[in-house]
């Protein structure tokens, strides 16, 4: 199981802050994960493709569609930071 986290306005779009999913074996990258999510929820897919979205894989900031998500336990999608 992989835990997906959505923050800020992405949480609103996703409808919840956290989703536990079984990723299909053919999903190996952030780009493939986004496409898979868009397939089920077009609004969420569009929001994840927008500019300024950062991806954190197992608590490490990893940007770019090619970043691997294989074996990841936690993948977070972060909209632009509000700051403190």
């Amino acid at each position, binding site marked *: 199981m992989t835990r997906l*986290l959505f*923050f*800020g*306005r992405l*949480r609103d779009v996703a409808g919840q802050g956290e989703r536990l999913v079984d990723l299909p074996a053919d999903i190996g990258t952030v780009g493939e994960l986004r496409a898979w999510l868009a397939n089920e929820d077009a609004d969420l897919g569009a929001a994840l493709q927008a500019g300024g979205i950062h991806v*954190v894989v197992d*608590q490490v900031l990893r940007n770019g569609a090619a970043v691997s998500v294989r074996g990841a336990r936690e993948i*977070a999608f*972060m*909209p*632009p*930071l*509000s*700051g*403190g």
Partner: protein
Amino acid sequence: MIRASVSLEPFSPDAEVARFSSLRGDGCGAVVTFIGYCRGRSKNRAVTQLELEHYPGFTEAEISRLATAAGEKHDVKDLLVIHRAGAIATGDPIVLVAAMSAHRAAAFAAVEELMDYLKTDAPFWKRETGPDGAHWIEPTAEDRIRREERAK
């Protein structure tokens, strides 16, 4: 020592500063503190509630990394950061930054630098609720400019 934490409950800046400054050695000549409070207005809109969402673990690590960077840049070894998350009432403290150093210039610079970092780079998502509903907030242009000025 660099101490960074996120508090889901209201905290007392006075008590935290008292504890921090009690640890000073006799070479310490300066303690600078900044406390940011939740204002009742933001950009001329009334604010009835402020919520700060954070990413547990990641947010603390990022704040700690920013504090370490600000401390190293100004040769300040003792820094304290406490940042609220969750639902914050008007008038409550949001952030406390404190630094101690032998002379005042370093402590001032470290606290200001760290506040500039936090304002733009700390992993928080801020939602303000007012009479016209809730809004997600992003850093202001002024915050970005201060941050960029610092980076020069």
